[in-house]
């Protein structure tokens, strides 16, 4: 068949009715002409009509052949089945709603989940040639890669035979005057090459010119698309404006296109200019991103960098540190996130399977009631293929409608979930229903069609004709019932696996909640502030600010105590530094957290020995340090120091602004009970606390203990800070409880997601079970009626139905437990202090599925008990 005829055939399909009408009129004209000719030849009108018909041949046969010729028979059949199916669905809206709803739920949740999997794990990064993008680090031995220094970065940058572009990136916060309270903006300090690394062209204006990260360059800034939209209303003349950051005007030179950079926290980018006094190899603060030259492989780049490292051996500070080049994508997705996403995807696939099983069950149940119709069709000569085809068409209609509704569900789910997950996903992850995702949805529909459509249609149409006709009037539906029971057992088993997983995760979350953070959680409010270098150029000016603010804060009504720290509990120490004992060459790493004299008392961190940090530990005074028990234990076990108080140790103290880090000999004056500086699930870390006045920081946290509801005091706190510095914005207003909850987000999100899936799975399994039991009761009305007529009590009947339910549930439970034993170890890394085979969690799963089974059996059991023997027997008699 030529292409031309295929097209014509498709057209003919759409114009079927018109073509039939045209043919009809041609036939009539033909017969008329033939009659006229016959009459002219002398025949009577009656004879003429007969002769015309005879020489024309079979009219209906001709029409059939005409249809065959002009179009594709199977397509016409398909369309007829589709129309038939739609009509019959409209007649049974309950069945249609339930099946389409189930499929929409299953396919929708899967499509949404796949969109996340695709965006986070599968799709290449949304930048040109992402495989050329790298991060470059300095690597201390046996440790995580480290940031680099200004001079070393400049050495790397000179390797322009490896790197097409190389840039630092460093997050900053800046205050922006807005008329009322100053706003706190997040931005990034970057090199002029930064956007070349990402291959991003500005939407309007330009990005940085090469000389704009050199000393003396004018102050310029590039905005993100969303910042431009929210702050400037998308004004196309934005390039005429200056943006005042920390009181200094910056010329806006460009706006980025919408996309990945809008999901980044930063709203603006400005060049990081190395002042001459910042050029050193001591301050490891620069994170480096780069783009390899075309044709340079990662291995070649690494080899070159190793050679460079060797040539710099004389000047590099960390003698045993190396240089490392790694793919940019490597660090975007953490291990926990990857596992959580796979886990959620696995969970949602199980839900889809159960939904499919339910649909298959419904189709089977419907098929059972249609056995007579099928048998009749077969008796009238419909081929087996034709019957299967018809049943498949019906499933196809259901699947297509379910799939379309599923895509809508996926859209809604993503819309609702995206803002909740944004913080947990990398900024490159674009959650959208693109072609790939829609393709996945189509594949899901196909899979569902095969699972939920093909099997039941084979089952229905292959059963023997005579059996169907014989049985039709009577009760049980034989093999179909067995298949349906098997499907329900499978559903129960699958939901048992999910419930076990959810129970384990919830138990783990409960364990995590119970971990003592070592600090006061209730009635504490926290805020962040960043002291700009313009207003606070020296450590002394910063120290004056800390003191003034704390004094004001304590005067605010409702405030019990207030302190300042570089970092909050559970959010890390801020600095990882080396500590050394006099006379011992081997140093060790500690977390260094500068705090003010009131931090410990505000958060109720008790002193174990010695003293805490006090008001007298000021800039000029002898430097001191307070250590936590964990560090004291380390000193005792590694160096035999039983009482560390009074000892002098050397520690790297970070600088302030351009003032570089330096090694200072400090005296240990006290030991405090360990607070959780890292996450609740991590082991305690060694931490040292220096007076904030002796190690001043620009980015600080205010910690305020209140007498009553902490959020009520926020405006008072803001006012107190405004009195000290009206231009300083406060950000991240959170209670300590919120800080704690946020630190557990990694565990909460997968737990709730799997929990929700387990709930849905249990519900679907209950529905399936209910369907089978209700159907069985309906089919056995007669049997039940006879038994009751013979003296069975309603209680006996109820017990029988429930026994039936429990048989199915128990079979599913055993299978499910076997599955759970095999599968729960995949979530081992997401569990905290819970064995993947925790007996309590498994018991909870067993009990809850048994309850679900009883509930599902209850309604059909009641219905069975309500059977009236007289009516039933009369009906069937």
């Amino acid at each position, binding site marked *: 068949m030529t292409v031309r005829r295929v097209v014509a055939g498709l057209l003919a399909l759409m114009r079927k009715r018109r073509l039939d009408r045209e043919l009809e009129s041609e036939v009539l004209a033909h017969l008329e002409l033939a009659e006229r000719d016959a009459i002219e030849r002398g025949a009577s009108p009656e004879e003429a009509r007969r002769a015309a018909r005879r020489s024309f041949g079979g009219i209906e046969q001709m029409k059939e*052949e*005409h249809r*065959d010729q*002009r179009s594709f028979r199977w397509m016409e059949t398909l369309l007829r089945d589709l129309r038939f199916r739609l009509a019959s669905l409209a007649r049974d809206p309950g069945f249609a709603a339930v099946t389409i709803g189930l499929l929409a739920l299953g396919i929708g949740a899967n499509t949404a989940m796949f969109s996340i999997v695709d965006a986070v794990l599968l799709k290449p990064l949304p930048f040109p040639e992402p495989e050329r993008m790298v991060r470059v680090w300095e690597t201390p031995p046996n440790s995580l890669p480290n940031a680099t220094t200004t001079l070393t970065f400049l050495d790397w940058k000179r390797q322009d035979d490896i790197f097409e572009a190389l840039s630092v990136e460093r997050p900053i916060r800046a205050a922006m005057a807005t008329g009322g309270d100053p706003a706190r903006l997040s931005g990034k300090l970057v090199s002029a090459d930064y956007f070349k690394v990402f291959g991003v062209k500005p939407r309007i204006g330009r990005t940085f010119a090469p000389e704009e990260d050199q000393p003396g360059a004018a102050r310029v800034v590039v905005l993100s698309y969303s910042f431009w939209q929210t702050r400037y209303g998308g004004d196309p003349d934005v390039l005429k404006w200056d943006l005042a950051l920390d009181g200094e005007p910056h010329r806006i030179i460009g706006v980025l296109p919408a996309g990945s950079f809008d999901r980044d926290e930063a709203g603006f980018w400005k060049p990081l200019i190395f002042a001459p006094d910042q050029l050193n190899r001591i301050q490891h603060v620069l994170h480096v991103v780069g783009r390899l030259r075309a044709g340079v492989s990662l291995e070649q780049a690494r080899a070159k960098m190793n050679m460079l490292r060797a040539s710099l051996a004389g000047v590099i500070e960390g003698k045993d540190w190396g240089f490392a080049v790694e793919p940019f994508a490597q660090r975007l997705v953490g291990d926990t996130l990857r596992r959580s996403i796979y886990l959620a995807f696995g969970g949602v696939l199980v839900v889809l399977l159960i939904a499919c099983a339910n649909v298959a069950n419904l189709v089977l149940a419907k098929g059972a009631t249609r056995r007579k119709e099928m048998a009749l069709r077969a008796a009238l000569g419909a081929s087996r293929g034709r019957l299967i085809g018809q049943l498949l068409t019906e499933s196809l209609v259901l699947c297509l409608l379910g799939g379309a509704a599923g895509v809508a569900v996926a859209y809604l789910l993503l819309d609702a979930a995206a803002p909740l997950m944004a913080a947990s996903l990398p900024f490159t992850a674009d959650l959208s229903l693109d072609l790939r995702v829609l393709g996945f949805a189509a594949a899901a529909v196909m899979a569902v069609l095969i699972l939920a459509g093909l099997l039941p249609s084979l089952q229905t149409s292959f059963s023997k004709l005579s059996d169907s006709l014989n049985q039709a009037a009577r009760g049980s539906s034989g093999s179909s019932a067995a298949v349906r029971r098997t499907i329900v057992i499978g559903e129960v088993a699958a939901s048992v696996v999910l419930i076990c997983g959810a129970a384990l995760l919830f138990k783990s979350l409960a364990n995590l909640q119970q971990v003592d953070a070592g600090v006061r959680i209730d009635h504490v409010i926290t805020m962040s502030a960043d002291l700009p270098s313009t207003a606070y150029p020296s450590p002394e000016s910063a120290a004056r600010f800390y003191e003034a603010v704390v004094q004001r804060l304590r005067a605010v009504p409702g405030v019990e105590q207030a302190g300042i720290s570089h970092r909050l509990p559970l959010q890390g120490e801020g600095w990882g530094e080396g500590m050394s004992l006099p006379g011992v060459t081997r140093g060790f790493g500690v977390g260094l957290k500068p705090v003010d004299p009131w931090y410990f008392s505000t958060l109720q961190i008790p002193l174990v020995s010695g003293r805490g940090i006090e008001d007298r530990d000021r800039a000029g005074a002898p430097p001191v340090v307070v250590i936590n028990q964990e560090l004291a234990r380390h000193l005792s076990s590694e160096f035999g120091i039983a009482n560390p108080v009074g000892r002098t140790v050397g520690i790297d103290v970070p600088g302030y602004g351009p003032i570089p880090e330096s090694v200072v000999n400090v005296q240990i004056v006290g030991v405090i009970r360990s607070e959780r500086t890292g996450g609740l699930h991590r082991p305690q870390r060694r931490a040292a606390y220096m007076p904030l006045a002796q190690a001043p920081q620009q980015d600080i946290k205010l910690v305020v203990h209140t007498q009553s509801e902490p959020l009520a005091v926020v405006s008072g706190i803001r006012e107190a800070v405004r009195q000290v510095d009206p231009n300083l914005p406060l950000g991240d207003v959170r209670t300590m409880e919120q800080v704690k909850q946020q630190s557990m987000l990694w565990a909460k999100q997968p737990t709730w997601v799997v929990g929700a899936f387990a709930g849905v799975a249990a519900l679907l399994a209950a529905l399936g079970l209910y369907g089978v039991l209700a159907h069985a009761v309906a089919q056995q009305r007669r049997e039940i009626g006879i038994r009751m007529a013979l003296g069975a009590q309603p209680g006996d009947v109820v017990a029988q139905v429930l026994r039936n339910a429990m048989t199915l549930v128990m079979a599913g439970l055993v299978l499910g437990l076997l599955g759970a034993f095999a599968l729960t170890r995949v979530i081992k890394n997401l569990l905290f202090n819970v064995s993947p085979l925790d007996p309590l969690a498994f018991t909870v799963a067993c009990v809850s599925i048994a309850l679900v089974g009883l509930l599902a059996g209850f309604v059909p059991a009641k219905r069975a008990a309500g059977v009236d023997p007289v009516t039933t027997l009369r009906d069937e008699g």
Partner: protein
Amino acid sequence: MSKRQTEVPYGTLDLLVLKTLETMGTMHGYAIARRIEQVCGDALQLSQGSVYPALMRLQQEGWICADWGISETNRKVKFYSLTKAGRKQLLVEVANWEKATALVARFLEESA
């Protein structure tokens, strides 16, 4: 596709229709059927109706085109005529037919 045997040798009806339209110009379906009957005489058992599926097929291939007109009995009917592509196709079909008959004739002679 159809299980029924056409009375006309398979594939020849198209050729007959095309040739008729070439010789006679524009015609309606009844006239085409009559003309074929007359030319072939008793040699052919043609159901007149079977020209319509053939006309549809040829139309879909683009070899003939149809226009609405009025029949001798004042009824709307389709008048068919040969297209340019149809003329070319007719040459091809005739050539094919001659080749095939020549082949069969030679085969029968040799085998006799």
